[in-house]
């Protein structure tokens, strides 16, 4: 347990007043319309959603997770965090396409890209799943805060979970996405600053960079500084085959939409940017910050390893970076550090509260329950949905035990069977709603079979995660490809409208030719001539 002094509590209270106050200050903007409450009116310059991308993906459990993989695998463990690099290509491909669609949510995008009953079924499914998923994420991030408070103050787990999520909900309820984005900007700065301070402090506490390198060499652990220290091509816990699989998933996944669960959060930031260019840069730079932040953490975790090399309990070494801050920072700065932890916590909570509420309001309430709802009513529905998500997250949070295993499993489950369909829906005109829907349904069944049920009954061996990915992708393709070819393509008229607006990359030749025949793309060329004049 840590004992806080007056100065420590001063920082914490000051931070809470500023962050909640700043969020609430945008109440008038947030209540203007549905577009304001969920997308800040689509008027943001790139650096605001970029800071939100960074702040949202810096949660309380993130340093726990990064510390866990780096303590175990050394600097090479950073590749576990490299999944975020789907934004490398996405920023210039799927982000551009999605921003041009103007869809509020990925669920809505389905009715723009696809057509008819299949599209509506997809919209209903994705929106329902996202409402649940956001509640689930809120629970797992929330309980991580409960664990930090238990470690620091000896509080019961539920106190940290309920207290800080509820404080955050004040400004999300009041100002919606305006509150989220403005608080994220401020929280992102505080968090990044503190991550650097704590990490440098930890490195110096271990004797400095040179001493860390020397000690690792003396201990016979110099491999921990090698970013490519794998355990073999296919053998061991961390083989090259895993690395190649991860690179494929992360990098090629950028051509698709939804290849990472983070896409759904990023999609909101993309649509809140004021232009296509701003959307691209917000995603690229937000992720660049995420990756460099992980690197700073990794250096500090090596320092922690040098000081505490023989910890075998995962739950103990996962807290390593937090320990550097709380055990080595001077009085006063510890309170500032805790304020930064609250910042990284509530920035994530705020984003998922507003995102889950947007799926409920836009896709379920407006589209299916009450299409004639007024803007004022939609804002209020958004607030009620926010409150329901908050209460639901308490329930889920108290159900969770092991953060890391849930996180890795959830990431994996969502990435595997629908990874390829998520790309095909963007790059291939012939892929239709039924193919995509069948991929989702098949993935739900197949992933549980391959990961849990069949190994349990010794029908197949328990496969490493990277082998599970390829197997799930193959099994999924055996279902969604025949379904796609056995059902009709989307109507050409619908595809042409989508193509002209979104200008997707990939195999869209037949649609493009039809659009040109109809003169819909010639119009652009005429504009060119006008420009030339």
């Amino acid at each position, binding site marked *: 347990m840590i004992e806080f002094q007056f100065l420590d509590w001063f920082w914490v209270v000051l931070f809470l007043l500023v962050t909640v106050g700043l969020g609430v200050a945008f109440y008038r903007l947030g209540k203007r319309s549905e577009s304001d409450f969920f997308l800040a009116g689509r008027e943001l310059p790139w650096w605001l959603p970029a800071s939100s991308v960074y702040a949202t993906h810096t949660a309380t459990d993130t340093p726990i997770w990064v510390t866990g993989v780096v303590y175990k695998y050394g600097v090479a463990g950073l590749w576990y965090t490299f999944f975020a*690099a789907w934004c490398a290509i996405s920023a*210039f491909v799927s982000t551009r396409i999605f921003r041009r669609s103007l869809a509020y949510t990925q669920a809505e995008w389905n009715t723009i890209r696809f057509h008819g009953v299949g599209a509506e079924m997809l919209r209903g499914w994705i929106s329902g799943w996202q409402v649940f998923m956001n509640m689930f994420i809120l629970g797992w991030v929330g309980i991580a805060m409960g664990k930090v408070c238990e470690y620091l103050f000896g509080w019961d787990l539920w106190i940290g979970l309920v207290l800080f999520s509820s404080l955050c909900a004040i400004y999300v309820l009041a100002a919606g996405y305006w509150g989220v984005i403005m608080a994220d900007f401020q929280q992102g700065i505080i968090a990044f600053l503190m991550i650097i301070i704590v990490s440098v402090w930890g490195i110096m506490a271990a004797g400095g960079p040179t001493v860390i390198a020397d000690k690792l060499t003396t201990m016979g652990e110099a491999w921990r*500084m090698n*970013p490519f220290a794998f355990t073999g091509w296919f053998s061991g816990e961390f083989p090259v085959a895993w690395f190649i699989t991860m690179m494929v998933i992360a990098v090629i996944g950028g051509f698709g939409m939804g290849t990472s669960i983070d896409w759904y959060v990023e999609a909101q930031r993309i649509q809140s940017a004021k232009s*296509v260019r701003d959307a691209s840069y917000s995603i690229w730079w937000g992720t660049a910050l995420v990756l*460099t932040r992980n690197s700073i953490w990794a*250096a500090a975790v090596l320092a922690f390893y040098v000081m505490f090399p023989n910890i075998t309990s995962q739950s103990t070494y996962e807290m390593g970076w937090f320990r550097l801050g709380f055990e080595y920072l001077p009085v006063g700065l510890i309170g500032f550090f805790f304020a930064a932890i609250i910042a990284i916590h509530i920035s994530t909570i705020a984003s998922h509260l507003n995102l889950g509420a947007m799926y409920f309001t836009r896709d379920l309430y407006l589209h299916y329950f009450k299409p004639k709802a007024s803007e004022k009513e939609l804002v209020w529905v958004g607030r009620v949905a926010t409150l329901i998500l908050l209460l639901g997250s308490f329930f889920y949070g108290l159900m969770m035990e092991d953060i890391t295993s849930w996180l890795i499993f959830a990431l994996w489950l969502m990435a595997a069977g629908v990874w390829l369909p998520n790309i095909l829906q963007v790059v291939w005109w012939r892929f239709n709603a039924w193919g995509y829907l069948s991929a989702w349904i098949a993935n739900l069944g197949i992933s549980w079979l391959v990961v849990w049920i069949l190994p349990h009954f010794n029908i197949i061996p328990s496969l490493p995660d990277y082998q599970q990915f390829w197997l799930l992708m193959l099994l999924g393709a055996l279902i969604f490809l025949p379904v796609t070819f056995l059902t009709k393509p989307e109507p050409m008229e619908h595809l042409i409208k989508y193509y002209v607006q979104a200008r997707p990359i990939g195999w869209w030749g037949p649609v493009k030719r039809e659009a040109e025949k109809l003169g819909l793309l010639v119009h652009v*060329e005429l504009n060119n001539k006008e420009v030339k004049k």
Partner: protein
Amino acid sequence: MKYIKRDWKPGDADEWTKEDWITIIISPLCYILLMIGTVLSFLLNVLGFILLAVGIFLTWFMHWVIDPKLKVISNEYEKKQHEYLEKLERNARWEEIHG
């Protein structure tokens, strides 16, 4: 004609061109170099500083390649955005059947 095109017209900018593919290839490399370069630089490793410097240069180069195109795409698209938003609302409220 320069290899990298930087004076875009609205019609050309909407097409996927080699400038996009150069960006698509360079962008993941930037992330790798920035990530590895940063951690090794924090450990005062010389290779880390070199990788970080290359990563920063490539990031600048990538923006130099793609930014003129993105600007033109954005400016042209903004002109049509209002019409598209109206259509989106009609669709969400079932006032326009898709297709």
